[in-house]
């Protein structure tokens, strides 16, 4: 139970293609993250899976059943909204009970299920409160409990952590992941935050301008970006790209190190690196500068681990290098990666 299959889905708003010919299938019990900048169509795609938005073309299949034109209540899905969308006039208890009551579940069974869901998210003591009397973190838990209470076959989340402060977000992320592993419900999670995507996803779907750019595990996405968009969108600071004829050479900032620190059994590429600016961030140092000839000098960033204490000064040039195995080649015109990943 719990497989979503998206077949050639497009969504047009007027003449704007918000989602453009997307094909995607989830695995059983998987945590799938839709990642992309704002306006890339990820939320529209999620809303089409939920049934709130109807696709302009294509089909939506959930558990082998075509649901494209079915209303949300006939799809056996649950969704957590970015705003949580708690019903402000109902207590927490009634909020969580709402999906059950809408399905005509009997009163005593509702009470048991609500208590079970509230216990799972540790909000049992909040049941009599109204949403406005809750903190952001508590509201998020209520929204999760309301979504989980009827044990849907697919669980949809639209940036549920974006309204929490940074500290809470980290712990909520961990809890969410553990919870999903425990119940094993197929989950589709939308975010624009790459750290969240990397940390949570079994697989990540990177989207841009309504199209899927790459689908892969966090490691594949990071190490073998399919194109220059993925290479620069994932990772902070982004992948360095250097002009090289009709090719763009890409390497991650943490692989661009002082020449003596690079070990490359398969060879290295060395560049004279003119340092322009340094940032000390505690665990690491970010070194900004230029490589290459003066005429087509390119701006690159290096990320040095805190253990590398080599003194560097702005304005001076040092030999820096990248191991060949860390170098990616992209087609300059199409932006596509020329190598296949090890998978």
């Amino acid at each position, binding site marked *: 139970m719990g497989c979503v299959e998206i077949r050639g889905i497009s969504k047009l708003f007027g003449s704007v293609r918000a989602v453009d010919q997307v094909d995607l299938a989830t695995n059983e019990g998987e945590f799938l993250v839709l990642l992309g900048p704002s306006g890339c169509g990820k939320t529209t795609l999620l809303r089409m899976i939920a049934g709130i938005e109807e696709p302009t073309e294509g089909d939506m299949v959930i558990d082998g059943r075509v649901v494209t034109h079915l209303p949300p209540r006939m799809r056996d899905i649950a969704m957590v909204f970015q705003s949580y*969308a708690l019903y402000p006039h109902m207590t927490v208890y009634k909020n969580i009970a*709402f999906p059950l009551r809408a399905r005509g579940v009997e009163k005593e069974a509702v009470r048991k299920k609500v208590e079970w869901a509230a216990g799972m998210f540790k909000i049992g003591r909040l049941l009599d409160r109204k949403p406005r009397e809750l903190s952001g973190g508590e509201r998020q838990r209520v929204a999760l409990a309301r979504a989980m209470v009827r044990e849907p076959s697919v669980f949809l989340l639209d940036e549920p952590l974006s309204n929490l402060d940074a500290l809470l977000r980290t712990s909520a992320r961990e809890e969410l992941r553990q919870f999903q592993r425990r119940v094993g419900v197929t989950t589709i999670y939308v975010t624009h935050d790459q750290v969240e995507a990397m940390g949570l996803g079994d697989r990540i779907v990177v989207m841009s301008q309504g199209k899927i750019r790459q689908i892969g595990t966090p490691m594949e996405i990071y190490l073998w970006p399919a194109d220059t968009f993925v290479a620069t969108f994932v990772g902070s600071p982004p992948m360095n790209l250097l002009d090289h004829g009709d090719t763009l050479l890409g390497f991650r900032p943490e692989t661009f190190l002082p020449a003596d620190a690079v070990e490359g059994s398969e060879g290295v590429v060395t560049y004279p690196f003119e340092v322009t600016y340094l940032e000390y961030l505690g665990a690491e140092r970010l070194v900004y500068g230029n490589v290459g000839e003066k005429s087509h000098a390119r701006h690159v960033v290096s990320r040095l681990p805190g253990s590398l204490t080599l003194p560097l000064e702005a304005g001076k040039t040092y030999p820096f290098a990248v191991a060949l195995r860390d170098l990616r080649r992209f087609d300059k015109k199409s932006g596509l990666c020329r190598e296949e990943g090890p998978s």
Partner: protein
Amino acid sequence: MSGQSVSIPAADGARAGLLDREGALAKLMIAPAILYIVAMIGVPFVLAVLYSLSDATTGDPTLKFVGLRNFAAALEDPVFRLSLWNTVAFTLVSQCIVVLLSRLLATALLKTFRGKWLVRFLIMLPWTAPISLGTIGWLWMLDSIFSPIDWVLRYVGLLGVPGALLGAGTNLYYLGIPGLAISSIILVDVWRILPLATVIQLAGLSSIPKDLLEAAEVDGASPWRRTLMITIPLTLPITSIAFLFGVVFTFTDLVVVYVLTRGGPVHTTQVLSSWTFFKGIEGGDLAQGAAISLFMFPVLAAVAILILRMARRTEVV
């Protein structure tokens, strides 16, 4: 002259004007409103109380106190009792219809469709026209001989031929038969308040976050259940405000009854405000008229308190 010699006065050296003194400015700004309320509402209200306790007439407006005699006399008067009953009944019936219709209209106006601006314009029209002119228009519509409504009914065969649904007579005499006259007054009351109520309801409906309705949809609620459990409870405070505003306007209205029926036939459409006017001004018994009008006060005071409490509740949600 060099640029350096130009002196710019320091900001803290400038004199603080009236605009800087918020306390004084606030008093100045609110003064016209207070003056207006005292002059137009406070003074007449005190006068009404004084008159109601006296035996003043339009011929002799000197105040000679007679205690509560006027109130006792009003209560014994069957026309007064009918007026009181009519006022309450007309108001409640018309406002219940207004709440239902305005909710329907507001729901329709939330959707996008061709010619929406025209529908909006037509709905707002009764509110922009002076009540008296609008009501005179209705007087013609409901005319005993030339009523266009009757004309249409005759044309489609519902009236004026033997065996027709609405009778064989050529006209229905809307304002001449008690039941029809009462219905006509209520109809015009509805027509008049509907625009305001629709605008208020529209504001209420569009203030519900879309997320909430979508969440309810995903949670499995049918359209009917969404209306019943989400939309209605969330818009209840603002719907009540629309209702209470309508109550105030209709409860105190004189024009509709005065223009259409003058309280007739035989006082069957008499309301407190029209009876006050006929007794106090046309009949010349100022004291009696004042006493009758004061019977509206407890109802209006209660409604005003309710409106204020409702307004606070809409802020909290």
